[in-house]
């Protein structure tokens, strides 16, 4: 039996890398945005980061990412500040040890496909608020989960299911997000 230690440097480094890349680019790079960005990185860009997401009324979520974030904060690679605004939440920014931790995960982060995926992720999704990312990641989860069950959903089906899960969004908002994801070919196949 092979025994290994396997410290997941690549996961820790990814958090620091995203904090660095999103600084000044994302309106509020907080815990929710981190969850949804990593979900999109795995599902849309097919980069296996080692996380296992489940769906809740608040969209795809994995507690492992919060656990990793705590450790990364403890290393000094990120700082987490509560945000005093109407929307609340947190803001994650790079810490003094970010570069050192990113270096520890450089084998992963410097792979061509990973680097390109992270760049595209931040370019395409970095401008969104947590609420918008939660909607988009939920749409993708709905499409992927149904596909796994052998059901090919139409855009109308997706709007209907997402509306039930996230009733605060209007049908028009959900449809716009579906069309946007479809046009970028992030939502394939759709019936």
């Amino acid at each position, binding site marked *: 039996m092979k*025994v*290994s*230690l*396997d*410290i997941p440097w690549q996961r820790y480094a990814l958090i620091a890398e995203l904090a660095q890349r999103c600084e000044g680019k994302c309106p509020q790079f*907080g815990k*929710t945005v981190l969850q949804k960005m990593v979900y999109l990185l795995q599902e849309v860009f097919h980069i296996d980061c080692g996380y*296992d997401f*489940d*769906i*809740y*009324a*608040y*969209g795809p979520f994995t*507690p*492992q990412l*919060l*656990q*990793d974030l*705590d*450790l990364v*904060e*403890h*290393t*000094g690679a990120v700082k987490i500040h*509560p945000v005093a605004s*109407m*929307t*609340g*939440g947190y803001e994650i920014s790079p810490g003094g*040890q970010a570069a*050192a*931790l990113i270096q*520890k995960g450089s084998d992963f982060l410097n792979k061509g496909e990973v680097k390109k995926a992270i760049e595209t992720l931040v370019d395409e999704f970095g401008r969104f608020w*947590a*609420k918008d990312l*939660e909607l988009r990641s939920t749409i993708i*989860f*709905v499409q992927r*989960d*149904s596909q*796994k*069950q052998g059901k090919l959903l139409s855009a109308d089906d997706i709007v209907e*299911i997402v509306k*039930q*899960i*996230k*009733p*605060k*969004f209007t049908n028009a908002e959900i449809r716009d997000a579906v069309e946007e994801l479809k046009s970028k070919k992030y939502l394939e196949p759709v019936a």
Partner: protein
Amino acid sequence: MGKTYEIRDPIHGFIELNEWERDIVNHPVFQRLRRIRQLGLTDMVYPGAMHTRFEHSLGVMHVATKMFDQIVKRRQDFLETELSFTAGGLERDRVLVRLSCLLHDAGHAPFSHAAEGLMDKDPTTNKSYKHENYSAAAVAFLMQDVIENHPLNQNYKITAQEIADFLNGRVALGRVLLWRSLVSSQLDADRADYLLRDSHHIGVAYGRYDLNRLLVTLTIALDPETESPVLAIEDGGVHAAEALILARYFMFTQVYFQHTRRAYDHHSVQAIKHLLMEAQRGGDLANKEAFPSPTSRENMEQYLKWDDWRVLGMIHRGLASEHGDILLNRQHHRRVFETPEVPNTSDLEFAEQVFAGLDDLVSFVDKAESSWYKFESADIPILLRPGQGDEELTKLSRLSTVVSGLKAVSRTRVYVAIENKEEALERVRVLRQQKEQKEAQA
């Protein structure tokens, strides 16, 4: 309404069942839970830990019902106007929640979470199935008749597949997905029950907290950041919420991730792995070193034949390899190194040096993240000024310095066989000395 039955419970007093639920409890799939211990071989450390998934499953149904009733009682208007629930729909949801919670652990492997690592891989995700997937499959493949054809289901028409979807967290649930937080979230009935139950049976006070206070302050609100509905606690329950978080922290560090208990998890998994290989050799199972996939009725019938009694009998007969012998003689492998609970980069680098230095002596590595029971720092939403027209949702960690100071436990441990313990400890001592010398020079 029909006849009701009460079962005496050491934590909640009496747990009430209707005739439909009693029939489900009497089904062989549910009765098997009497033969699955809640905490595996934890009794090797805490001798009182002999309770089973059977009583826990009843407890989760009971607590989830109280949570559901409390939320509906306090927030029915909110549920109907803001989230589009209806009174009739809520009545049906209550039944679905009760049955799903009752059956949430129906697919546990022998020794509960310990053997979860032996579950087969899902080819669609390339990740191992989880016990929830086995629970869902047990319901969908084997309990359809008792669920769907009971007279008390005439008005609801609840299907076995719906319960399976609830347990698997499928998007087909739509708005009902909200209630999944009652069985899987920071405020779920599952941990609400097991913290109290495990504490009671083990004889520790670490897991105790004020469940009644939590229940009367439980509510639902919209997260201002995303406008998603979330379970929350009203501000009057802040200290009860703190106690819940502390109970989770203490139970994790003192019980679930206790170093000797984790060694017995390792040995029981290795023993079962050997038994699975032997069964494969005998033509009983389709997969080597893994339980059958939860993908067919036949597989689930095979899988559910595995319970603690069967495994313990095989261990007792000397059929479970050297790990079975270790269990019989309490000669478990010993922890010779561990990182701090929340390690920094230097701690992790030192762990890598120790691992390399111990080399062939290492028998296994254990990580907090690979334990099913985790202590992660997920927050509890707190609703300030409920019902006063200026409600505000915040996070417990913003109100509590106790909670904000707690970080997720990410400890890693290295174990060696008992005969290698002294040599391993000496190697670790030398490595630590070298590290300290280097640090002093720097």
